[in-house]
């Protein structure tokens, strides 16, 4: 295993060197717009936005992106206009997605990890008994998920390519395809070939967060392991899309750096992906820092409810057709309110440890969830606010080639 890890390091390193001095397009965009490092100039611009500027932006066609529009809508001044933003965002969401919310469930398959992210319960230097589910164990977990009605599943793991391999994923996908209409993954970054391989195996979406777009903050939190390479991670969605993936999930951890600056960088990233990989759909997630095993980090940039709502509304008002995803990290009361605004996809009844659904394992969870209601309860809640639960919005009949 040691050797395997070492090899990963080398490959990453070599790729990094091979890329040489040429920046990838997204690296260049972020660098030219000063979005990949903390930037006081941008903060000043944000603080200078007036309520009138926001009102002016809200008279523009909703759903159209420009960096300036996004900057206006996430400015401190825009907090005065949240009600107007909410009514526009809610109407636009209904127009584009209907009065519906799609549900999915995460399936944690492994908590092995070769990274040392300071905020994460799976940090490789944390000592606890690690688990990777066997194919049979994972399929049994998936059966429980399917029995609750889910047809969309997200396979999640810590980042250790010697445990969660393309072969492992394809073998599992093969078992899951008859029960699930769409299978996505949230695992370590793969090569383009790796993505193409698992795409052919029936996996059609990839969620991968940059964690933070700020290079200095990134370096501070990701000191060791292959993940310490900011650029390789930033370029991942170019590889997922090139590998054929249909659904690309982006996000940053809310709490590590100034959320307004992070949002500007993520928006540029999303706009770049939408323009260049026009056959894939981009969605946004909002992982707010949660308590985790052996993590006692004191975050400087925690995001409060009002700010998170502002962030989500601004994204909808700039990206009419982007998925907006809300996980069980958030509280039931907060989620109940947000589904009326602009959320298009939610997880429900989530277990964030391998083996969590069958209750067999007491394995370590990645973070503590907040909303622990069952899928059925979430569907009832959606109904009570006039939304239809969408369990299935894809079909295994689509060929992944």
């Amino acid at each position, binding site marked *: 295993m040691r050797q395997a890890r070492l090899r990963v390091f080398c490959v990453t390193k070599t790729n990094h060197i091979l890329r040489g001095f040429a920046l990838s397009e997204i690296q260049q965009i972020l660098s030219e717009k000063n979005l990949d490092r903390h930037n006081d100039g941008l903060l000043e611009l944000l603080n200078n936005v007036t309520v009138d500027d926001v009102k002016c932006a809200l008279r523009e066609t909703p759903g159209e992106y420009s960096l300036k529009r996004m900057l206006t809508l996430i400015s401190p001044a825009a907090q005065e206009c949240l009600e107007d933003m909410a009514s526009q965002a809610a109407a636009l969401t*209904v*127009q*584009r*997605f*209907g*009065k*519906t919310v799609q549900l999915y469930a995460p399936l944690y398959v492994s908590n092995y990890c070769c990274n040392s992210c300071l905020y994460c319960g799976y940090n490789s230097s944390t000592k606890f008994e690690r688990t990777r589910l066997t194919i049979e164990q994972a399929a049994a977990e998936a059966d429980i998920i399917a029995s609750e009605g889910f047809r969309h599943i997200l396979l999640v793991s810590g980042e250790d390519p010697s445990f969660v391999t393309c072969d492992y994923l394809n073998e599992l996908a093969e078992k899951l395809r008859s029960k699930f*209409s769409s299978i996505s993954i949230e695992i370590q970054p793969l090569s383009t070939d790796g993505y193409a391989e698992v795409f052919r195996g029936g996996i059609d979406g990839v969620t991968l967060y940059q964690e933070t777009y700020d290079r200095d903050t990134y370096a501070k939190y990701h000191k060791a392991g292959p993940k310490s390479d900011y650029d390789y991670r930033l370029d991942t969605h170019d590889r997922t899309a090139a590998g054929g993936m*249909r659904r690309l999930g982006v996000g940053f951890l809310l709490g590590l750096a100034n959320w307004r600056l992070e949002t500007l960088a993520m928006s540029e990233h999303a706009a770049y992906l*939408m323009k260049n990989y*026009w*056959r*894939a*759909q981009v969605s946004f997630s909002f992982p707010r820092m949660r308590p985790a095993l052996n993590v006692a980090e004191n975050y400087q940039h925690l995001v409060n409810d009002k700010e998170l709502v502002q962030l989500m509304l601004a994204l909808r008002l700039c990206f*009419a*057709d982007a998925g907006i995803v809300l996980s069980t990290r958030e509280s039931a009361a907060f989620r109940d309110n947000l589904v009326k605004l602009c959320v298009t996809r939610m997880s429900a009844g989530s277990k964030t440890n391998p083996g969590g659904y069958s209750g067999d394992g007491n394995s370590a969870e990645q973070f503590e969830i907040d909303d622990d209601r069952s899928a059925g309860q979430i569907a009832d809640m959606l*109904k009570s606010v*006039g*939304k*239809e639960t*969408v369990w*299935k*919005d*894809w*079909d295994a*009949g*689509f*060929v992944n*080639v």
Partner: protein
Amino acid sequence: MDKLVIAGKEFGSRLFIGTGKYSSNQIMAESIAASKTDMVTVALRRVDIENENDDMLAAIDREKYLLLPNTSGARDAKEAIRLAKLARAASGINWLKLEVTPDPYYLLPDGTETLKAAKALVKDGFVVLPYINADPILAKKLQDVGTATVMPLASPIGSNQGLKTRAAIEIIIKQATVPVVVDAGLGLPSHAAEAMEMGSDAVLVNTAIAAAADPVLMAKAFKQAVKAGRNAFLAGRAAVTTEANASSPLTGFLRD
């Protein structure tokens, strides 16, 4: 009688209904009933076509409405064909609304792949109703390969912008040898009436009804508009002039 005939089947209503975006399957069913439609389209990605107890399918009375499966989400001809065949094998339905929409943002149809898929599916015995851009040449090519209709978009799907492609649709109607169903982008009953007044044979509506505050009432309004538009077309509109036209400006004195 003014009947619409598609592939030998008669339709009493010239309004077809989509099934996405409703707040519940019950509201969907009530809206379908209020529209008095004869045909509803359902995305294969949203249902288990082989399962009659599927929530959405169970809400659609198959005795009353012809179910038109669609391939929304297919990126290319290959995907659409495979999906269509699996659906037919599971359901026995050989009518198909062919949608090849590789771009998930505007959901605009890919003409090249649509033509390729249409050719193969018609050959394979499907009744193919292809969703297309308002492209008169493509419409002709599709008719040549044997599609049962052509379904040009009025404006991007779900956009509610109305008949932005009017000039091209006029040409498609003039040249058509199969029914022309205006699909996508009709946001108001007046838009649907306009399409019918032009001579479209039918329209298909989803978002404008499903996303309305009162979908059932909006479905009824569309029903009335489609009927009014069709009657106006049959009645033959009076000529348009730029100036007011008194009844007999030159010879009126003769009646004095």
